[in-house]
């Protein structure tokens, strides 16, 4: 970055990529300078992932040109891209759990050709991790590592392959605030070393905190090309992302808690791998109250949601208005008014190859007016489905469209429409806004607050601490299957919560030194 007009490390010109019926990238330009962190911001479906998959060699553009250090290049596969020094850290990691960090880093490399000299490789990996602050034991097995550590292994894989350009796809989604700070330090030390980073995100605060320049995409088109962070603002970026001003601060009515509706008492449960996931959890959620669970991924919060919705066997007791629902048929929990917005929207929350209509009647097909004895009244079902589709603004060609063809935001609208339609007493919402665009997030938040107003007891599990603090009346912090702290939201301090989430104690918290994450949190 010494010359006035440096050749970009990576440059994309006029990229066009169409999928059936959608122009995912419409003449997109993008350039990445050497040694910078360039954020790519956009709603889901804006075309960020398509563009990055083209850069990383997964897709080929219909037209347009890629240049690496000024030279035109065509990648036929991710392998060719990495050989040219360009690698991507995906949201879902590609590690072998039973192997060590070193083995995972070496996996797929042609050298060492035959004889693994683990010692030497370990040493190299140790040097790399020390240099960039990627704390991880090279000899640890992947399954022993936290999600944050696994992410470090993914980065190490690329560094070991001498990647000069790293594409990070929403890297902070799975991290606790402290881990985000560490990641940011790592990213900065990598750019100081002359590497260049594309940072994909839809979190405005984060992008403002880490990026040098920002490119914003909306509906396949670039709406802001490489603007410097200093020259923009959150409001400006938000407008370019969604095409209108968004309200950052949610209107909340005063907290008027009703009686306890959901009571969890001393619940223990195992996770899918048979390991203890919940170690004696007790909690209450009152009518008209939103309780947020703050926890780093994998600390039992998902298992708790499944126990409450009767999907996972457990010991202990879960009652809805006094009726036991845990360890009984799921149908009983549904009848007692438990609505569930599951984490896995396409595998659990919807049936992908069934129509929107079939998905919308999933929880009430056995009741009148849809059911007539054994028969399903098709007209009634379609009428109800059409009504919900209109009321909740589900964007789909028709109610006969297969659910898998809907965008993430619309699938979530469908799930909320169906779950709220049952008139729930309790709603368990798991990562309800993960991966959604700003407009859809706003819709979800509005719906949750409306439900609260209507007297539903809401358990909100989210990895977005800002979201919990913005919506919840009370925050319960979970760590390793226990509730390690519970605060009314007014008393909640993001530093303390962050420490508790990562295994610290409240006494460790020093309010005098707020972390970076506090500075980037949403304006409340």
């Amino acid at each position, binding site marked *: 970055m010494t010359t006035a007009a440096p050749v970009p490390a990576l440059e994309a010109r006029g990229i066009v990529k169409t*999928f*059936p*019926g959608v122009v995912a990238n419409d003449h997109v330009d993008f350039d990445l300078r050497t040694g910078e962190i360039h954020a790519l911001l956009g709603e889901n479906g804006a075309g960020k992932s398509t563009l990055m998959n083209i850069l990383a060699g997964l897709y*080929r553009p219909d037209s347009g040109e890629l240049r690496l250090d000024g030279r035109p*290049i*065509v*990648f*036929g596969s991710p*392998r*060719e*891209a990495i*050989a*040219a020094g360009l690698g991507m850290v995906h949201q879902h990691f590609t590690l072998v759990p039973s192997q060590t960090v070193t083995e995972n880093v070496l996996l797929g490399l042609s050298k060492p050709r035959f004889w693994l000299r683990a010692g030497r490789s370990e040493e190299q990996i140790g040097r790399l991790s020390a240099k960039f602050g990627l704390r991880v034991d090279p000899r640890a097995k992947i399954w022993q590592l936290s999600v944050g550590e696994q992410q470090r292994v993914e980065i190490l894989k690329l560094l070991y392959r001498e990647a000069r350009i790293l594409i990070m796809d929403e890297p902070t989604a799975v991290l606790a605030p402290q881990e985000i700070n560490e990641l940011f330090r790592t990213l900065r030390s990598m750019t100081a070393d002359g590497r260049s980073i594309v940072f994909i995100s839809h979190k405005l605060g984060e992008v403002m905190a880490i990026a040098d320049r920002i490119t914003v995409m909306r509906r396949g088109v670039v709406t802001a090309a490489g603007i410097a962070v200093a020259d923009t603002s959150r409001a400006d970026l938000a407008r370019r992302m969604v095409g209108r001003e968004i309200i950052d601060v949610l209107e909340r009515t005063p907290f008027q808690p009703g009686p306890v509706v959901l009571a969890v008492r001393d619940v223990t449960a195992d996770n899918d791998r048979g390991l203890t996931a919940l170690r004696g959890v007790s909690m209450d959620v009152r009518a008209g109250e939103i309780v947020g669970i703050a926890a780093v991924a994998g600390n039992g919060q998902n298992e708790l949601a499944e126990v409450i*919705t009767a*999907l996972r066997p457990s010991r202990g007791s879960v009652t809805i208005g006094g009726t036991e629902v845990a360890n009984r*048929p*799921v*149908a009983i*929990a*549904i009848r007692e008014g438990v609505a*569930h917005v*599951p984490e*896995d929207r396409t*595998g*659990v*929350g*919807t*049936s*992908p*190859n*069934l129509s929107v209509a*079939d998905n919308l*009647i*999933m*929880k009430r*097909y*056995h009741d009148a007016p849809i*059911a007539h004895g*054994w*028969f*399903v009244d*098709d007209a009634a079902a379609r009428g109800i489905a059409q009504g919900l589709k209109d009321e909740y603004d589900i964007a789909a060609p028709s109610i006969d469209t297969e659910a898998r*063809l809907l965008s993430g935001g619309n699938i979530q609208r469908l799930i909320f429409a169906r779950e709220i339609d049952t008139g729930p007493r309790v709603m368990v919402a798991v990562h309800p806004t993960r991966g959604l665009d700003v407009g859809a997030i706003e819709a979800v938040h509005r719906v949750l607050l409306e439900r609260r107003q209507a007297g539903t007891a809401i358990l909100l599990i989210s990895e977005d601490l800002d979201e919990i603090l913005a919506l919840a009346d009370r925050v319960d912090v979970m760590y390793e299957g226990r509730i390690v702290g519970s605060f009314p939201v007014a008393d909640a301090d993001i530093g303390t919560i962050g420490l508790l989430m990562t295994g610290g104690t409240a006494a460790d918290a020093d309010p005098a030194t707020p972390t970076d994450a506090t500075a980037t949190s949403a304006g409340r």
Partner: protein
Amino acid sequence: MNLRLEPRTDTPRWFPATATIGALVVAFILSGFIIWLVGGDPIRSFTHIMVAAFGSVGVISDTLVKATPLILTGLACSLAFRMHLWNIGAEGQFLLGAWGASAVVLVPILPAGTPAIVVIPVMMLAGAAAGGAWGFIPGILRARLGVSEIITTLMLNYVALFWIQYWVFGPWSEGGFQQTRPFPPEAWLPRLTDLAAAFPVLGGLTVHLGLIFGILAATIMWVALERTRWGYEIRLIGDSPSAARYAGIDIGRKIVVVFVISGALAGLGGMSEVGGVVHKLQDQISPGYGFTAIIIAYLARFGPFRVIVASILFGALILAGREIQPSGVPAMIQGIILFALIGSDVLIRYRIRFDRHLATA
């Protein structure tokens, strides 16, 4: 050049049907090629098959007789396959159904001389019950213990075959031959030819009541699958068991029920075969109807009425193929059809892309 598969995001409605017909065409071209390779004349062979299967009212009737057990076993497979239950035990359930129906006559459960109006319904019940019981075993094992139904249903086919053999070689053997004594006429399913006295034109037509069972069963199954809560649940479980569980459906119970009904349909097929065609129990009553049913279910893409069409096609193949060669050619054509169908499935789910790029790195 590189050949790549990309998942389809939008499959037009007409596409699966076209792909199926395309697969059939490809299968016949390939079969013709093989017939030509071994020195046969493919055009003449296929023409012969057409004439032998559909050339006259008499042979059409024979084709329908062959199609009847295929319809019932094909429906049995389609129902289970819809829920992604791989019941490949229709053969065994068919045999048990034949055995159950025979028991009514041979034990005897009903005294000799009971009128047909009583004997036939009781045989139907017994056949369906025995087939259903044979389906219940893999169903309960799968639902309660998670035992793979593919293995259990396959193995139970052999158990069923030995069970039949025990009875026809042992207790029910007629004079040491591997078959039972013929059923009395009251236990025969009515045939068209039985009406020849009143309508001479029907003389010699062996189509029997079993065909009506098949058509009725297909109709009931269609209504149940498309118009009832039960059918909705089957669709939901078939597409996404985890979504079905989330919706409060007791999947284990549905697995058992579907297996019992599937077995009962195949069992009814066995009953219709002993009651309508063979009129006795022997160890060779099925030339593999229950296995052909798997291909038929796929060809019909699990649609009840399409099962009837596919069964008639295969009935024709079995009947007319026999005139060309006792076993080789017809079995080969069936096999090629299955392969072509499985291949066409790939086309339905993926689009094929030809990449013409040169590696640069």
